[in-house]
């Protein structure tokens, strides 16, 4: 089920259990930023082989070095651009747009008539949205193909443990959240669809729905408000529901805090799962932390703009909109083993002790898996 090509043979699922998390410890160029916790800083172990001439490279220096390497590869790739095609671009712009679209993953496998029919349907409002505002046609035809390219080509996502995603019935997927913008949520949705052809439904913060365009787009791809009512309604409908319990605390954390799970709220997601008696699937995503390495925050400006945080990254706001292009870090997404909730005692959903215990269990599983996966990844931009 692992469909990413490049590192496919490097590891088997199950090899990266907690406690067994240094499969490639002495591999040169390996990166283990998550282990740099205060108090257990071990610079000697963290020295990548090629940086021997520097005594203690800071985290950012290492990040920039790796970024430099990635940029070199990118420039090398640019030389192979089909220049001829660029020259003929002006001849028939519309056709170019369509062929560009198809290269970006807008897959018009159908005939021109089918495409015409699609355009007619979209323009005359002849498509269905569900009670949450989810527009499956738009999601499957327009959004997911683009996200698929983003996941496969830009982030080179490697999927592990896909057999743990339920092929039918409701389940609650719980993931870590990082990266400044919720790109991990989009990538995760695309990956799940590619694995089992089910649309997972993400729960989002109210700020998303108060933001023009963002809220509209979110509803169209199946996101709804993170509240108990909607979670239970979705689970009751037999849907896969994705939650990011860290919320903005996870998204907006600094680069130095990366891969350290933040507080998991009050465990409302556990209550929802327990009430609906559906399994919880812990998901660990690595790579998302490095797409926008947040060096500092601008709290004053954030308050003026009414956003929860405003990060400074190596490229943003320095390069403006260009600085918002996510860095092409190497991603690994691991679906952990399901945690059953149907064996919990009656009324567990309202028992804070039980809820906290399960919350902790989920959180610990994700945290340990994150550390294990970091050991497995060869480099940030590997």
């Amino acid at each position: 089920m692992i469909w990413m090509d490049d590192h496919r043979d490097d590891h088997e699922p199950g090899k990266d259990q907690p406690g067994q998390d240094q499969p490639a410890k002495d591999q040169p160029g390996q990166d283990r930023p998550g282990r740099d916790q205060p108090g257990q800083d071990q610079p000697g172990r963290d020295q990548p082989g090629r940086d021997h001439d520097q005594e203690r490279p800071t985290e950012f220096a290492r990040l920039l070095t790796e970024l430099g390497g990635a940029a070199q590869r990118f420039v090398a790739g640019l030389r192979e651009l089909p220049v001829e095609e660029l020259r003929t671009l002006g001849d028939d712009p519309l056709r170019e747009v369509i062929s560009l679209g198809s290269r970006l993953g807008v897959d018009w496998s159908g005939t021109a008539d089918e495409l015409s029919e699609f355009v007619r349907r979209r323009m005359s409002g002849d498509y269905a949205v569900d009670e949450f505002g989810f527009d499956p046609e738009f999601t499957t035809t327009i959004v997911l193909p683009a996200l698929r390219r983003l996941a496969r080509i830009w982030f080179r996502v490697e999927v592990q443990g896909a057999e743990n995603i339920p092929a039918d019935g409701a389940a609650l997927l719980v993931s870590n959240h990082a990266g400044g913008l919720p790109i991990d949520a989009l990538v995760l949705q695309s990956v799940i669809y590619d694995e089992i052809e089910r649309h997972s439904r993400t729960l989002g913060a109210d700020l998303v729905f108060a933001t023009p365009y963002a809220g509209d787009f979110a509803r169209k791809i199946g996101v709804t408000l993170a509240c108990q009512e909607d979670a239970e309604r979705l689970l009751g409908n037999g849907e896969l529901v994705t939650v990011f319990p860290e919320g903005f605390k996870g998204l907006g954390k600094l680069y130095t805090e990366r891969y350290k799970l933040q507080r998991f709220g009050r465990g409302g997601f556990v209550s929802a799962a327990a009430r609906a008696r559906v399994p919880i699937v812990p998901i660990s995503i690595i790579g998302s932390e490095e797409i926008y390495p947040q060096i500092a925050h601008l709290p004053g400006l954030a308050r003026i703009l009414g956003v929860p945080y405003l990060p400074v990254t190596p490229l943003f706001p320095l390069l403006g909109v260009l600085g918002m292009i996510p860095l092409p870090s190497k991603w690994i997404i691991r679906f952990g083993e399901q945690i059953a909730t149907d064996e919990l005692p009656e009324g567990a959903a309202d028992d804070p002790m039980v809820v906290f215990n399960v919350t902790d269990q989920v959180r610990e599983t994700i945290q340990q898996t994150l550390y294990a996966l970091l050991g497995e990844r060869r480099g940030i931009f590997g």
Partner: protein
Amino acid sequence: MVVTAILITGVSRQLGARFARSLAARDDLDVIGVDVLPPKYDIGRARYIRADIRNAAIGRLLSGSGVETVVHLGMVSSAAGTGGTAMMKEINVIGTMQLLAACQTSTSVRRLVVRSTAGVYGASPRDPARFTEEMTARAEPRSGFGRDAREIESFVDGLARRRPDLVVSVLRLAELMGAHTDSALAGYLSLPVVPAPMGYDARLQFLHPSDAVTALELVTGADHPGTFNVGAADVITLRQALAVLGRPAVGVPERLVAPMAAAGRRTGTADMSADRIDAVTYGRCMDTSRFAAATGFTPQYSTRAALEDFAAGLRPGRFQAPRLAQLAAGVIGSALRPARPAAGAGSAGDRRD
């Protein structure tokens, strides 16, 4: 045959007239229609009595006719045709207070049906996808019919506490939409060019007037105490609705929405109060399962069908989406067609034109 007297307020308006006409067709009912203005629409065999629910005369009418069931539809949802927001508030709030006081003292009345609206739930980005009856507004409706309806419902609750023997049903109706509906939202949707909040695509839920009448008949004919959401099951987004109606949408930035709505109210173009603007910005949808479980009610019209019925009774819009879409599809198709043989398909059947 025992003839039951039933009093309906607000029969000069669309829903009241339609409901009165439908009930009056039955032989076992004596339907009395009350309003300050004579009915504009056909009320069938119902008796029209000119009376103002805002004064105490309504109490004498109740006792004089031995009314058993009171159906209160006499609230107004739009300030435009009423004479301003102050008058609207007076009709809605003072009128309901007087009517309920009359019901409380009446010895004949044993059932009360009150129309309310989905507007009581407000509309905000913090709303759940569907409101059930127990939920309250996440953002209180700031003005307009939604706010009046909240006050009306609180009076009705008070009466139900004081007169536990009364069977009180409150129906929170979704926006009515059907052929020739003349609501404020219908007026807004039928503008030649519709200003819509930029970057938002609200979920809309409608109720066809004929379904509203069926729902009212269900609660007038049998005891179904409680508060119920009534609406079609599905939703349609604002942009979809405008496409169905053939109305081009013009995005209005958030800051300009309120001034534009104010201008629309002043010029009489469209009566979009703040609560209605919220509804077409963030959208709102009700969970209607409680009413279905209590009465077995299933709407005959989906939200989309209700809107299509409205569209059929409307002058076609400037922006005929099907025609324009055909044009766009044709352009794309012709651009794609020559490309296909080059892409290796090479089938001659592709090049019919």
